[in-house]
């Protein structure tokens, strides 16, 4: 809008600078949202539209009505702002829909199953009702722990090499490229790789939890490298120089100055990587297998894990199928809870380790 409409903004005849413009009341967006919803509900009642159509209509009506009203009163710039804001909110709602429905679905199906018995019993000799997922919880914890023990040293050390010692060397560029390639490996391929590797040593048909850990660490290492690399790059060069200027050798500078400064971010990255692989199914299906009994030894025999348990409980629930499927939902809820707890821990830890300004 280059020409300003007749209004208070134009009343600058007495020499005041035109900074005052008419504005919509603060409750205007809420009011329009209410109208839009009402229009959509009317359509739903009279034309028999479904929920999706109603929601889309409400959104569209809001996106048209509010900017129109705004451009009539406030002018073009504000109207565009209202339109863009509305679009953002709509996108937010659309993005939240799957998350909310997923959480709702898992909670409503899973919560009734959760009980003391469900969390502390395994599935040995269980037909129909009863049984629990203790063996699968422990399996997931053990396999993920081993995967973390493998990936963190390898990943963090690789990142330290890349950032502190790489300096555009050929080896560093090759490592960066390989990490990029590793990021794209499908999880089933990681599982096949681990299986093929363990077949060399233990013969065909091998199943063990540690094999699952190796497969998961193939998926985890690139995430850890990337996260650590980014965190190390954030450490200001001035701190390294300050340390060198005190006559501190490079390796001590890295271990005592750079790593502590980046520690919070590194731990967060590792936790998120753990949360990411804890829900992997395909590789564990191949190499860790499934069992109904407790097996806490990662180096022998099949080991149940939550994702694999969910998969088998839902695809082969037994007769009658209700109990197996209910257990699958319960296990899904437990898995999501574990992952969420890991994320929350990551946040708490990063807050605790973050360099303090203390102002």
């Amino acid at each position, binding site marked *: 809008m280059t020409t300003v409409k007749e209004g208070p903004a134009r009343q600058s005849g007495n020499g005041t600078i035109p900074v005052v413009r008419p504005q919509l009341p603060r409750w205007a967006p809420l009011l329009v949202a209410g109208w839009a919803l009402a229009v959509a509900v009317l359509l739903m009642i009279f034309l028999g539209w479904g929920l999706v159509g109603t929601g889309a209509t409400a959104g569209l009506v809001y996106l048209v009505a509010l900017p129109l009203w705004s451009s009539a009163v406030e002018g073009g710039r504000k109207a565009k702002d209202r339109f863009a804001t509305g679009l953002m909110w709509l996108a937010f709602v659309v993005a939240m829909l799957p998350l909310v429905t997923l959480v709702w679905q898992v909670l409503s199906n899973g919560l009734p199953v959760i009980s003391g018995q469900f969390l502390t019993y395994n599935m040995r000799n269980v037909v129909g009702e009863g049984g629990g997922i203790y063996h699968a919880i422990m399996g997931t914890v053990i396999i993920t722990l081993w995967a973390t023990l493998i990936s963190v040293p390898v990943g963090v050390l690789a990142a330290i090499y890349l950032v502190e010692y790489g300096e555009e060397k050929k080896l560093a560029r090759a490592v960066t490229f390989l990490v990029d390639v590793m990021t794209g490996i499908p999880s089933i391929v990681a599982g096949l790789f681990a299986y093929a590797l363990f077949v060399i040593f233990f013969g065909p048909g091998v199943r063990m939890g540690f094999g699952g850990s190796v497969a998961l660490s193939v998926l985890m290492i690139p995430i850890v490298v990337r996260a650590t690399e980014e965190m190390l790059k954030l450490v200001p060069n001035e701190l390294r120089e*300050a340390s060198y200027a005190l006559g501190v050798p490079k390796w*001590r500078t890295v271990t005592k100055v750079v790593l502590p400064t980046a520690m919070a971010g590194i731990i967060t990255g590792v936790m998120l990587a753990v949360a990411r692989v804890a829900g992997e199914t395909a590789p564990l299906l191949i190499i860790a297998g499934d069992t109904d009994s407790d097996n806490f030894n990662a180096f022998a025999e099949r080991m149940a894990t939550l994702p694999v348990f969910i998969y088998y409980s839902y695809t082969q629930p037994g007769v009658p199928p209700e109990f197996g499927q209910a257990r699958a939902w319960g296990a899904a809820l437990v898995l999501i809870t574990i992952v969420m707890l890991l994320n929350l821990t990551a946040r708490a830890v990063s807050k605790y380790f973050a360099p303090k300004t203390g102002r």
Partner: protein
Amino acid sequence: MAKSIDISDLDIYYGDFLAVEGVSLTIRARSVTAFIGPSGCGKSTFLRSLNRMHEVIPGAWVDGKVVIDGQELYGPNVDPVEVRRQIGMVFQRPNPFPTMSIYDNVLAGNRLNSKRMKKAEADGIVERSLRGANLWTEVKDRLTKPGASLSGGQQQRLCIARAIAVEPQVLLMDEPCSALDPISTAAIEDLIHDLKQDYTIVIVTHNMQQAARVSDETGFFNLKAAGQPGHLVEFNSTEKMFAGPDNPATEDYISGRFG
């Protein structure tokens, strides 16, 4: 414990690029030597080459001789880490270690080299260094607070305390006051005056009044032309530099008729 530095025919490079050409001078012990000059003329680069911090930048190297106490700094068997223990440095921007308390920041040079010492000895070093940096009375009640909790001027004095805690022979200062207000600047200039009793001090500054106030000898760096390497135009006692310099270019720069 102060030492003098003899520099002869020093050329400083970044990769193929010659940044500073043919510097020869002697920095006297227990005195303050200032270097002035326009931006980008290589003052800081020259300063960093005096404790082998220059080569920390990938591709940077040096040709020429820097001799301290009869030892050639760029000799074949010289360990740069040992050099930096003898020649401390204070940077333009205060850079205390964010993960450490004030106390640990002062001891960083000792602790990071995992020198073992008793608590009393460590306390002694902290108090002496902080007193030396004129900061003790301000922070003595909050030594366990993070170093980043101090104001900019205090942080810079903390960095000076950290540098003198390892008792170097020489203290290099790269525009130590450029990020500070006039009060903090005055505090640090007073400090430089006191430190000169024990240390050889080399300071790079943009502020000619500061050079005139704190230094005994002054060097003027300039570019021959844009894109040409920087070089040392004149090196003289500060009095002579500011009263009647030998070189007309120096006079132009100092009197503000530059270029």
